[in-house]
């Protein structure tokens, strides 16, 4: 962190895809709502100039051929510029090319078969696969999208990739479980889970990370939102992380959200190559509960790695004020005792919020980080 200003900001996950991208990728005509959305955001962040004939067509020029790939590229460029324009220091493309964080990587592997949707909460679901054979990688993934981001980014690109524990935990592990005698017991489930996690880590994630690093990726976020699912498996999360990253040359972070973090300690700290813990906190920070007090655990266990501090609740439309963001950052700084360890980010991906709401939240976050910086540095 030497020489870096306090409280740099970063994105943490996916954003909603703009309407014109969704329509265009489906091969549908871009309606007036989609065109108006395009024009409005171009007025706001000026991303279309030089972005090619499709952008010109969406601004009112002659119709372009309906090439889904062109819409994907333009969507990725838009979300990259959106995050840059919001003022973030580390950016990506809002995962504009991905279906979501589980289905896409699973589709790059052999040995997994989709079975149907399972509810996560409310009306949110995910398509769940089962391991029906040994996991193998078809080809390293996210490489083309990283090439595109690297070629176009003005800020530092940070690529997110779903971690091995989450991919295994969010799947049924029938192949590995079916090999266990007496598969109904908890111990059998754990043995099967470990085999599954390590196969995903070694055979799918690691070669993908290596390919990304070969293409120039230097900051990589391993997403492990499932890390807190089973309190006694935090060691598997760390073991999977190590199997995927050991000896690779990049700055790795681990994103975890919506978990009881106490159950992860101290086993999670064995994730040796993890430089930053990027976790959700704002969701649990309310008027009568300090959502950041969990940070005391890092002090308690003597872990002085960076913290990616979640300061935006991604599941509510209410926009946090910059003052509230600053307050959260300053409270966390006090708890950690070292503000230079803090990066500021949303709790998780803002995909479930509209682009308008996400924009307001992100700009409030950047302003809140500036205010917190000014408070500690004594000037703005």
């Amino acid at each position, binding site marked *: 962190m030497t020489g870096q200003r306090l409280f740099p900001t970063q994105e943490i996950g996916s954003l909603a895809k703009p309407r014109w991208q969704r329509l265009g990728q489906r091969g549908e005509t871009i309606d007036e709502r989609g065109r108006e959305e395009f024009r409005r955001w171009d007025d706001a962040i000026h991303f279309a100039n030089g972005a090619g004939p499709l952008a010109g067509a969406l601004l009112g020029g002659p119709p372009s051929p309906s090439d889904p790939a062109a819409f994907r590229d333009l969507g990725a460029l838009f979300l990259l510029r959106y995050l840059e324009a919001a003022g973030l220091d580390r950016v990506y493309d809002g995962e504009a090319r991905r279906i979501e964080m589980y289905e896409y990587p699973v589709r790059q592997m052999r040995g997994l078969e989709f079975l149907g*949707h*399972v*509810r996560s*909460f409310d*009306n949110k679901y995910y398509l769940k696969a089962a391991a029906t054979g040994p996991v193998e990688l078809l080809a390293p993934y996210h490489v083309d999208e990283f090439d595109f981001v690297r070629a176009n980014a003005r800020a530092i690109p940070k690529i997110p990739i779903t971690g091995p524990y989450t991919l295994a935990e969010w799947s049924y592990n029938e192949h590995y479980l079916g090999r266990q005698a007496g598969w109904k*017991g908890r111990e059998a489930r754990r043995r099967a889970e470990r085999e599954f996690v390590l196969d995903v880590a070694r055979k799918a994630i690691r070669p993908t990370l290596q390919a990304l690093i070969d293409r120039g990726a230097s900051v990589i976020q391993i997403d492990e939102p*499932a890390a807190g699912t089973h309190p006694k498996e935090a060691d598997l999360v760390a073991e999977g992380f190590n199997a995927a990253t050991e000896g690779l040359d990049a700055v790795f972070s681990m994103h975890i959200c919506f978990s009881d973090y106490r159950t992860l300690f101290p086993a999670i700290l064995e994730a040796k190559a993890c430089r930053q813990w990027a976790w959700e906190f704002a969701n649990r920070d309310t008027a009568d509960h300090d959502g950041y007090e969990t940070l005391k655990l890092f002090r308690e266990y003597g872990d002085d790695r960076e913290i990616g501090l979640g300061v935006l609740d991604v599941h509510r439309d209410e926009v946090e004020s910059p003052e509230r963001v600053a307050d959260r950052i300053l409270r966390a700084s006090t708890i950690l005792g070292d503000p230079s360890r803090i990066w500021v980010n949303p709790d998780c991906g803002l995909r479930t919020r509209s682009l308008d709401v996400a924009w307001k939240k992100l700009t409030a976050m950047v302003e809140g980080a500036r205010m917190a910086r000014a408070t500690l540095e004594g000037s703005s």
Partner: protein
Amino acid sequence: MSQLRTALTGPLPRSEALVAATRDLDRGRTTPEAVEELYRRGESEVDELEARLGLDVRSGGYLRWADLFRPFAETWGGFTVGPITRYFETNTFFRQPILHSPPVRTPGAIRKRLPAPPSSDLSNRKVTLPGPYTFAGLLDNRSGETRESLTHRLGRLLSEEVRELYGAGYRTFQFQEPLLVVDPPEGPLAEAAVASYRSISQAAQGSTTIVWTFFADARPAFPLLDRLAVSVIGVDLAETEPAELPVPASPRSLGLGCIDPRTTLLETPDDVVRIVRGAFERFHPPQLWLGPGAPLDLLPYEAATRKLELLPAVRQRLGESGGAEA
């Protein structure tokens, strides 16, 4: 087969059509009326499924419930709906109810949210509710009331709920109590749990009351479970070895959760028949209830319905061999 009963343990997953419709509703791509029509159709399909499977009591699938607690958090006084919170060791979440002041039951509110029954005869419908211990333990209690007192209070409020539903014609009430085995109570809290079920049983005399436990081994908590004034104690066979359960002080009906919703691997009828026979021999239960070990909404719809075929298969084998009459 008079001693064997089969039923669902909790909600069924939504069908792929309902998944798509509710997603579309959130994205403004369909209308509430269109989704309502799919809910009705979905509930009808669940009724048909439960009938085809020969379930003794039917639930309707609880397709509309966002989570076990939401109807209460949204309609009872004292609550607001809180943050997304993991539901035990699963990848499903609930919005944690926040209790700001002593809870106040709203008469009629829960009944309105129950799955619509296909006929006016409710005697074979099962109502599934949160158990008072789990409810009190999973909510964010900012009311100032102790957990013991709150457990007891929720038991009294749920007993009022049961009384109202009994008056409407319902005769089977299941209370979801995973926390009783995940984090068994001791001392005064255990006594509060016992007292809360005493309240419930008094409100439901003449009905069948079920406490269903899941997500952990029921053995450590079984002495306490055996003290609960309910008709049936249900355990999750993915976590609990029934042959190692202590024999109840007096014969009591048991529930065996023989379908594991954590995996799509199919249980074999022969294995379950063996377990059922062993349970009859060991426990001499007045009734033995078979069902999923935990709510089936951890599975996609197709996989869940496929696994449910186990229940009639087991019943058929026991009927053929007369095993359930032992």
